[in-house]
């Protein structure tokens, strides 16, 4: 469950993070302000309050709205609400990493791109983004490891992920050590490969000497 939640949330957050980055780099002031405001809001509040507000306020309000508008009674499963909240949270951090990576590509690369007649869009696509990817890999991998660990907080809205299940088992058996130590090791088993894969990818994208 933890793995599934993290994997889906990682996918959505990459997409959402990319959109936020584009909004931040856009020449339209409105989109820049919106993206900036969103990022500051997410980064300035604890994840646990976002989970509670997302589940008990937004999710419930949306269910009501759908009932009123379409006369359909839906109930969002905590699993999906949890994924949406985690994605929204990680996307804000990811987009800051992406923006940093893109802005770290020097002016001379832009100049070179313009000189050979590329459009700004083409410069992003062929010159800036391919180089930025390598620079953001380490920080992104760290964030995905955080995402896996943060998914444990979803237990408060009754998502049956790793932490909650362990907690249940410990409550039944009173065996804290036997429960929580393997739990920690379990998280390590998930997060360590992320670092390894990131190293591999970095090596593949390496071109500087």
């Amino acid at each position, binding site marked *: 469950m933890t793995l599934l939640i993290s994997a889906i949330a990682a996918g959505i957050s990459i997409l959402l993070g990319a959109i936020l980055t584009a909004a931040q780099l856009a020449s339209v002031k409105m989109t820049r302000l919106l993206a900036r405001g969103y990022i500051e809001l997410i980064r300035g509040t604890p994840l646990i309050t976002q989970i509670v507000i997302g589940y008990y306020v937004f999710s419930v309000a949306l269910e009501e709205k759908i009932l009123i508008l379409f006369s359909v009674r839906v109930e969002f499963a905590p699993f999906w609400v949890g994924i949406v909240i985690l994605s929204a949270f990680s996307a804000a951090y990811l987009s800051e990493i992406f923006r940093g990576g893109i802005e770290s590509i020097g002016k001379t690369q832009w100049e070179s791109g313009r000189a050979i007649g590329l459009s700004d869009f083409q410069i992003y696509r062929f010159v800036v983004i391919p*180089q930025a990817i390598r620079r953001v890999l380490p920080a992104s991998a760290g964030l995905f490891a955080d995402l896996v660990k943060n998914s444990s907080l979803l237990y408060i809205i009754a998502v049956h992920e790793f932490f909650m299940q362990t907690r249940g088992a410990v409550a039944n058996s009173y065996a804290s050590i036997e429960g929580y130590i393997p739990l920690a090791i379990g998280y390590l088993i998930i997060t360590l490969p992320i670092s390894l894969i990131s190293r591999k990818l970095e090596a593949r994208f390496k071109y500087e000497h």
Partner: protein
Amino acid sequence: MNIEVRDLSKIYAPSSVALQDVNFATAADTQVLVFIGPSGGGKSTLLRLLGGLESPTTGEIFHDHTQLDQRTAPLRSFRQKNGFLFQQFNLFPHLTALENILLPLVEVHGQTSANAEKTALAGLDRFGLADHSEKRPGELSGGQQQRVGLARAMAHEPELLILDEPTSALDPEMKAEVLEVIEELCESGQRIIFSTHEMGFAKAAADEVLFLAEGTVLATATPKEIFENPSDPRIATFLERVMKW
């Protein structure tokens, strides 16, 4: 080529005036135009304005009697017709030498991959880089990188080739290898404008020399006139100093 500039100024900030009221016109039969003068005198800025990489604050530029349109789209298509080489950091570090040349051919000039590859490999071969096509810039020497840059700038047969101090960042041996290639281009009839601190090369290669200092053109003349009988005492002082060693 015929290049004419009228009342051209480029002012970045009130305290940073790169060019001030520049006026000149080249002779009609000039094929190689060379900019010389002290650093910070405006050579780079003028090259960038002539090449459409930047827009002037005021003034007009004419290439073969056609005024350079400063709007985004025409400026971009103007740049696509020409070739550029800067002092350094020209190449894209994540692409191989070959890919660096292929990118504009395919994405800007719409060539098929097969055609582009043929052109690019011929270009690399011409500049003595046949063995280095699969290397990334980080694996090449400075001189080789500049020659790849030249191959890229020449691949689409530009009307005008603009080189901004192409050898300034190189050691003497690499300087020589790049200058030899540029010399070959000059002799092939390619229209070239370049700026340089290599006075010997400027004298040998130029049809016409433009002396820039303090953001203005002090003289436009043949190399013989500039080097043997400079019209302005500031040019004489400059030449005396740089030729001394």
